[in-house]
């Protein structure tokens, strides 16, 4: 198992190099002079030239990229933010807990609501509950998060004044963004649980369990659920990865100072090292989450565990 994990981590290296290269290329060809962005519109031409020299912005493309990778790999240094002058890593690590909390809450909400709804829907296929749940799930899936966010603000913050409309420092403030972000995940988890459950409860071993005289609740709750959860776990993992990195819109609506907003601001202000580092960080997080999901998988499904060995 350990060998497998190591191999997976090794396999990450080319992917991350690729990510770094992609982002580097993209930013290289993005209009806008980072020197100007860093030094401000009042800066003199000399200052700008000096900055470009110092930061190596005049070097050929590949040299710049090589330098970056060299520093990142051998010195663990992914640079300093142009705008705040702080180390990029520090900036990300300040922002990351917000995003992590936001995503985790959203994921928890999605799981708490999605899995039971999916199970009930599957057991009572074609019932009114099923129909309504599925329609709601579809609506949740179709609801643009920025619109849902606005509606939530309108009702819960503006009309009812129950919850604050922005910020992310108190528990109350976390509710609206988490719910807005969770909406899509709830729908996806519900749908996935339902379809996976539907497939599983038709499986032969469920019939075997029933033939033993087992109670329906245990047949569903033990025999079916664990098997049905396997694809749901993958989905949750993927979703969590998406949430972690894709909470950009939610963060911008609710002014959550997370990684997503950090990234958007960095892109807007040509903060190259920040964008680089941020995307790399997100890619790493994403990959680690995927790895964890695969391990969790192996935990749930002994067949996969056997393959990993």
């Amino acid at each position, binding site marked *: 198992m350990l060998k497998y994990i190591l191999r997976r981590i090794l396999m990450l290296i080319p*992917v991350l190099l*690729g990510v770094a290269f992609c*982002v580097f290329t993209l930013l290289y060809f993005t209009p806008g002079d980072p020197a100007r962005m860093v030094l401000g519109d009042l800066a003199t031409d000399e200052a700008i030239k000096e900055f470009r020299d110092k930061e190596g912005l005049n070097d050929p493309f590949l040299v710049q990229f090589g330098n970056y990778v060299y520093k990142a790999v051998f010195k663990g240094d992914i640079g300093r933010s142009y705008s705040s002058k702080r180390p990029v890593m520090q900036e990300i690590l300040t922002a990351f807990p917000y995003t992590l909390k936001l995503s985790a809450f959203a994921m928890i909400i999605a799981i708490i609501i999605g899995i039971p709804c999916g199970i009930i829907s599957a057991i009572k296929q074609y019932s009114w509950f099923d129909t309504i749940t599925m329609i709601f799930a579809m609506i949740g899936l*179709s609801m*643009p998060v920025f619109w849902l966010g606005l509606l939530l603000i309108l009702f819960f913050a503006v009309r009812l004044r129950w919850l604050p409309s922005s910020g992310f420092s108190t528990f109350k403030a976390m509710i609206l963004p988490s719910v807005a972000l969770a909406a899509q995940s709830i729908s996806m988890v519900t749908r996935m649980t339902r379809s996976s459950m539907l497939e599983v409860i038709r499986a032969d071993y469920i019939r075997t369990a029933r033939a033993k005289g087992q109670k329906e609740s245990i047949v569903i709750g033990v025999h079916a659920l664990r098997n049905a959860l396997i694809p749901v776990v993958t989905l949750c993992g993927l979703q969590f990865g998406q949430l972690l*990195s894709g909470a*950009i819109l939610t963060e911008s609506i609710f002014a959550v100072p997370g990684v997503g907003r950090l990234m958007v601001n960095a892109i807007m202000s040509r903060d190259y090292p920040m*964008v680089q580092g941020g*995307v790399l960080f997100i890619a790493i997080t994403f990959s680690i989450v995927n790895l964890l999901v695969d391990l969790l998988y192996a935990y749930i499904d002994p067949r996969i565990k056997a393959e990993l060995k």
Partner: protein
Amino acid sequence: MTTTDEKIIPELVRKRRSPLFEVFLRLSKSPLAMFGLAIIFILVFCAVFAEAISPYSPIKQDLMHMFETPSSAHWLGTDEFGRDILSRLIYGARVSLQVGFIAVGIALITGGMLGAVSGYYSGWLDNCIMRVMDVLLSIPQTLLAIAIVAALGPSLMNLMIAVGISAVPTYARIVRGSVLSIRSMEFIEAARAAGSSDLRIILKHIIPNSMAPIIVQSTLGVASAILNAAGLSFIGLGIQPPNPEWGAMLSGGRQYIRDFPHMTLYPGLAIMLTILALNFLGDGLRDALDPKLKR
């Protein structure tokens, strides 16, 4: 050889019906899918005949009638420039559908080709392509799209390119997966046994059989492309004003949400209905296309 059994069971007589029609027949059994299809038809109609059906020009300002709530003159009210929201929504359908379909087209053609090549000629080429896709997949779609728009500059075309490119890996994976699964099926072997060439096998056997998941994914993909584009517009990286785009309208109405919620309500509703319709249709298509492969 006798054909006795044919005399015994005579019910199997059938006329040649186009497979497309069959799919439609099955689709028509799902009310939700039909609802989706109807909405899409209305949207396409709006998009095509926007000039004819919208009551006002989408960019004509009327500073005397700003922020009007819905009335008989302006069914959905007016915005901060006194522009008719209904007309802007109708024209917005054109933009959104364009973005959705062209972006998916870009993603489908690029991703589909990469995926097909990757799946059919497995080996180092497959490995190469899939590692590149892994790289793209590990950058979140929205972020990738933002970065691409930022690099190319905001415009309708660039928006479509950005949304399209960011969806390429998804299609590459789906196409590859479906090519792989079909390639391992016995009828491909049977076709080879019959002497079919690679090209024929790809064109006649693999592509038609991998269409179902791709069609479904494309339908859902149009939905997510529209959503993605609206998201980009919402943060100011989309279509340039005064062109009507739903995400931008939503973003524009955002600061008036307390006094004039109609400005955010209708564009939001339009986006949601469109996505909902496409999702319903996609789900319906999935069911309608499926039985051919599994039964």
